[in-house]
C-alpha cells in the first residue's frame, strides 16, 4: 500500500516536471518565432527579459537561502505546529506577515511555499501569504501619493481581512471538490 503511494507520488512528480519542460520549451519556441518573423519585437522582449532578470535574481537568491534554512531547521513537526491544521491564529499571523514582508515577483516565492506545503502547511495559509503580497510597506508612500492616505489605510485593512476570508473559502472549495 505504502509502496503504491510512493510510486504514485513519484509518477505525479515526473508528470509535473514533464509539463514544466513542455511549458518552458513552448516559450522558447515563441521567442524563436519572434526572432524569425519579428526581430524588433524579439529584441524588445529580450531587453524586457534582461531587465526583469536583473531585478529578480537577488530575490531568487533570498528565496534559495530561505528554503535552505527551512530545510535545515524546520522539520514536518515544526511546520505542522506553526502552519498546519491546528496552527490557528498563529498560522494566520505568520502567513500575513510573511506575505507582507516578502519582496519581488510572486512566482519567485512558489518554490518555498510548495516546500512548506509538502511539510504540512495549510492551503489557506498559502492563499493568505499570496494575497498579502498586495500589501507592501515599502510601496505605501507611492500608494498614498496616487490615491491618498484614507484610501491606502482602508484598502490595506480590507486586503488583510480578505486574505483570511479568501484562504478559508479556497481551502473549503478545494476540500469540497476533493
Amino acid at each position: 500500500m505504502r509502496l503504491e503511494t510512493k510510486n504514485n507520488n513519484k509518477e505525479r512528480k515526473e508528470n509535473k516536471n514533464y509539463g514544466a519542460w513542455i511549458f518552458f520549451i513552448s516559450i522558447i519556441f515563441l521567442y524563436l518565432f519572434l526572432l524569425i518573423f519579428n526581430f524588433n519585437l524579439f529584441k524588445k522582449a529580450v531587453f524586457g527579459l534582461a531587465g526583469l532578470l536583473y531585478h529578480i535574481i537577488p530575490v531568487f537568491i533570498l528565496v534559495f537561502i530561505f528554503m535552505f534554512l527551512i530545510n535545515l531547521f524546520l522539520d514536518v513537526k515544526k511546520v505542522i505546529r506553526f502552519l498546519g491544521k491546528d496552527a490557528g491564529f498563529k498560522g494566520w499571523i505568520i502567513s500575513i506577515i510573511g506575505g507582507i514582508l516578502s519582496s519581488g515577483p510572486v512566482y519567485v516565492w512558489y518554490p518555498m511555499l510548495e516546500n512548506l506545503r509538502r511539510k504540512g502547511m495549510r492551503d489557506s495559509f498559502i492563499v493568505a501569504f499570496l494575497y498579502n503580497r498586495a500589501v507592501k510597506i515599502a510601496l505605501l508612500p507611492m500608494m498614498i501619493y496616487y490615491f491618498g492616505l484614507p484610501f491606502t489605510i482602508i484598502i490595506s485593512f480590507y486586503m488583510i481581512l480578505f486574505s483570511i476570508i479568501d484562504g478559508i473559502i479556497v481551502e473549503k472549495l478545494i476540500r469540497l471538490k476533493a
Partner: protein
Amino acid sequence: MVKMDFKKSFLKTVNSFKQILPILGGVVMLIGLFISVVPKNLYQKFFTGNTVIDSLAGAFFGSIATGNPITSYIIGGEFLKQGISLVAVAAFILTWVTVGIIQLPAESLIFGKKFAITRNIICFLTALVVAVLTVFTLSFL
C-alpha cells in the same frame, strides 16, 4: 551530524530549485514578452464610463497585467485623472497583485490546477468586493 544536515538540506534545496526552474524560467520569459509587447495605455481604451462594467474591466485587466505594483499605481492614477471610477481603479490595482493569469501555468504546475484556478477565481471575485467596500467606507470619511 550538523555538517551532514547542512549538506543534505543544501542538496534538497538545489533539487527543489532544479525541478521548479523550467516553470519559473518559462514564466519569467513570458512576462518579459508581455511587458515589452503590451503598451501601458492599451487598457484605458476599454473603459466605458459605466461603473459596473468599468469595475469588471479594471479587475480583468489587472488580472492579465503583470509587473511591479508601482506600475499599477501609476496606471491607476492615470485612470483616475481620465475620470474612470475609483471602484474600477481599486479593482485594477487589487487584481494586479492578487490574480495572475500569466503566472497561472506556473501556479498550476507547482500547487495543482485545482488550487490555482480556485484561488484566482476567488481572488478575482473578492477584489471586486474589496474595491466596492473600500470606496463605500471612504464615502463616510
